[in-house]
């Protein structure tokens, strides 16, 4: 609230600042209790599935095991970030600040895996 001691110089200042200020984050349709528990349920179910998979020797030995677990883990990751960290509903800049570094991090990880011979490119 503007006080009475506000001087001449910053009165127009504030008016102008407000005129140019983009609206504060609007009160988004924030996810509510029902979204939250459903998300928690989905996360728990995926985790149960992951641990279950760990105890299936035939599946663990198969080619699909690692990609499946990586996918499930990535899915949980995305769900938490989108709903609990409300990136889905939030300002674009936060998405940039998070996904940019995440991308660099992921590519660095993959690069290192290649360099240390944990991943291969088959030539011919």
């Amino acid at each position, binding site marked *: 609230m503007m006080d009475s001691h506000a001087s001449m110089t910053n009165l127009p200042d504030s008016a102008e*600042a407000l005129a140019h200020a983009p609206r504060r984050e609007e009160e988004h349709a924030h996810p509510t209790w029902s979204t939250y528990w459903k998300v928690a349920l989905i996360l728990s179910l995926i985790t149960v599935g992951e641990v279950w998979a760990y105890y299936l020797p035939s599946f663990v030995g198969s080619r699909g095991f690692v990609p499946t677990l990586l996918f499930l883990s990535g899915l949980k990751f995305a769900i938490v970030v989108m709903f609990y960290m409300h990136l889905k509903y939030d300002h674009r800049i936060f998405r940039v600040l998070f996904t940019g570094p995440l991308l660099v991090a992921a590519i660095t990880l993959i690069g290192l895996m290649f*360099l240390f011979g944990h991943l291969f490119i088959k030539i011919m």
Partner: protein
Amino acid sequence: MATTARPAPKHSPDAYGEHSGLWSWLSTVDHKRIGVLYLYTALFFFMFGGVEAIIIRAQLGAPNQHLVSAEFYNQLFTMHGTTMIFLAIMPLSAAFFNFLIPLQIGARDVAFPRLNAFSYWVYLFGGIFITIPILFAVAPNDGWFGYAPLTTRAYSPGINIDFWVIGLLILGVSSLAAAFNFLTTIINLRAPGMTLMRMPMFTWMAFIVQVLLVLAFPVVTIALVFLLFDRFFGTNFYNTVSAGADPLLWQHLFWIFGHPEVYILVLPAFGLVSEVLPTYSKKPLFGYPVMVYSGILIAVLGFGVWAHHMFAVGLGPIADTFFGLTTMLIAIPTGVKIFNWIATMAQGSIRYTTAMLFGIGLVALFTIGGISGIMHASPPADLQQTDTYFIVAHFHYVLFGGSIMGIFGGIYHYFPKITGRLMDEKLGKIHFWLTVVAMNLTFFPMHFSGMLGMPRRIYTYDAGQGWDLFNAMSTAGAMIFPIAMLVFIYNFFVSRKRGEIAGSNPWGAGTLEWTIPSPPPEYNFAKIPTVTSRYPLWEGKEVDYECARINSQEGKTSADLGIVMPYSTIKPLLVALGLVTMFCGLIFARALIGVGAALMIFSLYSWLLSPLEPEHD
């Protein structure tokens, strides 16, 4: 245009007259004063690192000299690199980040003024921590990139490397804290109308550098933590002998940080030059958007080239090809910048001020370093050049010819804004020409001694290998640097007291920081301007006259204007002191860890729970 008339300032330009005394500096949270602290401290370390370099050159001036011992020589070159990178160039850039970013984007301070003070104090204490040992000949001695396993306890049993590991961890905290602060400031405190594509180029480059810092420093932090654990707690990260650790782990982690670090060192100078060249050519920067995109491209590619520092280890044809190609690709955006600077000057009405000379110097000398860089982007060529003086020549052309020339240009350009007085141009030009001669005489012959096979980091050499002449030349050149620096220091301090009064815009520059008095009042802008173009002062019809009039008023305090400024506080200093004490405890006495942690946590809570500024509503 309100400022071309250069009205004589009404108040004394003695910087920050009303707040003086030691306490005011210890407790300041004003970004301008913190910038000045960074500037002085970094110039001190720059000279300290310079003295180390001169001893190195003296030792190498002629064959078979024994001016210093081999062991001390190792400490000298390690600390020369470490000092220049972490204690001189990065903080000199930080001085400009601090001073300029808020002024260029039309803000009253950075986003987190107290965090900003914290960054500086951590830097100061960390710098002292890592510098003191060389006075007792126990300084780090394994090279600035501290290759493990050489740096593990098995091969470096002394406390030398302990200082290095811990010192760099401390300095990393400072850099990261500052990076989050500036990143937030640039994202969130731009004045109305200051869109991203209207930001001054220095702020743009600073923005990119903060992103690089935020992404690169965690990696080296982890690499250092591994080394710390190996040395203190007996882990096996770099234990290649009995645990089967991979000798390349450190190299990869270090260079994932190390290559972006190169751009962290040079992009701020690019930014400064992009302010200097347009001002003294009286032309807007040529190809502004391309300059922005090329900066971004350099940063992105900078994360995909790290293994070019490691071609000699034999990574295999695929990795060599990939990293060779990406390295060559970086030449494109860098070349674009060079051409844009040249095009900025083309057909401009150029004034050869000292700042302009340093700017042109950067364009010329950095290009030499860039071209030799492309030479060893090719793995087969690199195998010949790696670990020779050719590499030393290359990165000194990039870091001295690039970063330092740009920073000196920036100092001459912004000295009037910082102090309110002009630096002496005649002395400045003497400084410039001495520097150019010294720089080329020192580093150009290194291309030849390197091509003739002289390895880096040897403390002496036999005569008759064709290196004698080139080394004598390099040493002669190195001896000119102190003269140049003395001229600079004399000029700096005399001008600060007795230089010509500058006025708000002595150079007729176009960006926002020149609309306010020199030195700027604590609140920077009496009225936050609305920005409508990249060079508000050059596009007269778009200047907000009322705003310019208010902002050129001098001698008013924030209280007069009813502007709320943050309280000054000692707490950031105490937190920094606690942090550094804690780290000292690892080396000296374990009890210090508890003392430091207690001081840090107590001061941190006290800081976080006290308000930043007076209540205002």
